[in-house]
């Protein structure tokens, strides 16, 4: 049996409570987080354990005193998780949470939230450009939609975009809940999130197969 297991990322760290819930479920099955790789998460096989995983915006706990305090309470720094977060883990069920006050945790996400709004704006602008580039020739009858094989790719792009937006919405939903004083729920709802993330992969494969089928059907002359 292999000791190192690699899994594609189906849940983005930005989808914070779902990502944490997924890692905790993996640990209960004996797959312990080792590190993030470009394509996904690397787990090490070990004893099933009730480990708590928590994401913290990168650079927030930067002082040596804060790092010492984390260690003192059993919160081990595991490394960077995605572009925006650092990951901490604690195997001690009695240790206090990394965040013991949801409202204060919402403040910790403020700066990241501001940055994400800019990303989201950029993403929306790029999508509008893409749509204009694809649809303009069709609308001005310079190209017919039936002769436009990239339409399938456009559909795929829109699916991926919808997933990105869904992840961002998930982040802002959590921040709003925290600001209202509600602690994060790390229940089994990560499964639904993972299902939504899998959908564009399936759509992508379907598009690829369709394109290959169209290519195969073309005359060779």
């Amino acid at each position, binding site marked *: 049996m292999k000791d190192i297991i690699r899994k594609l990322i189906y849940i983005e760290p930005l989808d914070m409570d779902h990502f944490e819930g997924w890692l905790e479920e993996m640990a209960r099955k004996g797959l312990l987080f080792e590190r993030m790789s470009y394509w996904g998460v690397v787990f090490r096989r070990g004893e099933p354990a009730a480990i708590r995983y*928590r994401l*913290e915006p990168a650079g*927030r*706990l930067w*002082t*040596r*005193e*804060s790092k*010492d*305090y*984390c260690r*003192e*309470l059993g*919160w081990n720094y595991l490394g960077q998780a995605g572009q925006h977060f650092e990951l901490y883990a604690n195997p001690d069920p009695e240790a*206090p*949470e*990394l*965040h*013991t*006050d949801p*409202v*204060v*945790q919402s*403040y*910790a996400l*403020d*700066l990241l*939230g*501001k940055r994400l709004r800019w990303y989201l704006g950029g993403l929306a602008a790029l999508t509008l450009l893409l749509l204009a580039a694809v649809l303009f020739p069709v609308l001005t009858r310079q190209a017919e939609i039936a002769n436009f094989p990239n339409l399938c790719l456009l559909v795929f792009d829109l699916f991926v975009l919808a997933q990105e937006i869904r992840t961002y919405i998930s982040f802002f939903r959590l921040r709003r809940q925290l600001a209202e*004083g509600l602690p994060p729920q790390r229940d089994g709802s990560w499964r639904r999130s993972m299902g939504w993330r899998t959908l564009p992969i399936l759509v992508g494969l379907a598009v690829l197969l369709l394109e290959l089928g169209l290519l195969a059907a073309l005359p060779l002359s």
Partner: protein
Amino acid sequence: MGRKTLELLTESMFYVLMSLLREDRCGTEMADWVQGRTGGRVRLGPGTLYTILAKFQEENLIRETAVDGRRRTYTLTDEGRRRYLEEVARLRACLSDAEEEGQ
């Protein structure tokens, strides 16, 4: 940070201000003091503690007075003391209303 001012102090924020009322302390001393003062009812996780300290510095409620190795010591500013006393008055009013209404 996005939000401009702290409209209400949460319990952990209130106790952090209280911990600085009589003497300057570093972060871990504040956490220990709050835990002792509340008999373990209020504990400050590292994420919470250091977010509060950053937010309070930004709002000019506390000020860093010394850096000694890993320890950073903080003191209450006049604005911090004013916010603390304002919160005490608000809590007193709440308690008074509750007492008048009876058990």
